[in-house]
């Protein structure tokens, strides 16, 4: 295998996952939290693909594609909720969203 070994990919994946987790924890806008969640899911995908290459089996790639589908569905539902919230004139700030009944 050319280039760095699998461990380098895993460390990179951890770094990006941590940055995404930090974004989810410190930001207040639900839009940015969704974007940071996508970063976390993609970091997990990178680890899956690296392990798939390490074991020489395609199962990890199937798993990564399934994660991609879940991420797309999550983005659809999350953005739908954000648009519904903004139409009800709820302030887009996760610290102020305390009840589910608008």
């Amino acid at each position, binding site marked *: 295998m*050319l*280039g760095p*070994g*699998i*461990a*380098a*990919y*895993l*460390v*990179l994946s*951890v770094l*990006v*996952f*941590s*940055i995404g*987790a*930090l*974004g989810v*924890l*410190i*930001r*207040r806008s639900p*839009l*940015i939290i*969704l*974007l*940071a969640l*996508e*970063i976390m899911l*993609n970091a997990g995908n*990178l680890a899956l*693909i690296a392990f*798939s*290459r*390490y074991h*020489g089996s395609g*199962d990890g*790639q*199937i798993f990564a*594609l399934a994660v*991609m*589908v*879940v*991420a*797309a*569905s*999550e*983005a*659809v*539902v999350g*953005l*739908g*909720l*954000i*648009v*519904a919230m*903004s*139409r009800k004139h709820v302030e*887009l*700030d996760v610290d102020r969203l305390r009840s589910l009944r608008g």
Partner: protein
Amino acid sequence: MDAGNILVWIVWVGAALGLVASAVAVVLFANPFYSALALLGNLGSLAVFYLLLQAEFVAAAQVLVYAGAVIVMFLFVIAYLGGRADTPWAGGPSLQSAAAVLATAAIAVEIVVAVTYEADGHLSRPAEIAAAFGSPAQIGNLFLSDHLLVFEVTSLILLVAAVGGVILGRAASAETRVEGGERAT
């Protein structure tokens, strides 16, 4: 070290810098529009890594699904809502943000230690693979043989998400119609 390997290293380091820098940019930009554009750079760098790991089909799906569909959806919603600025460290250093940084650093250190501890054993010798590894043919073969259930459940999840999106949009538009009617009378 031959020329091909040096080229792969250069591409790897460039993509790694792009990946980390764009992830930091997504978290730190105040304007959600810029954050979404930075996520595009993040996904592009990831596609480069997928190609280096011989996952060609996943790299193509990544660019099509994320860059082509998810980011465009994000940009539409951000444009619809209007880019409201939201600074990441608003309100000064609070106990919450300090705890967030601490928790994230703890996760990162813990996993890096675990990976490097494991890596000095066998992680440096990946398996030998065929040239067709990660090709659409191989992925399709796996999807329709060993992972048929995953394939079917995937289609169900997409259907549920589409129905959910439509219901959320419909409910919201019905309410605005009622509100508009009340305002008119």
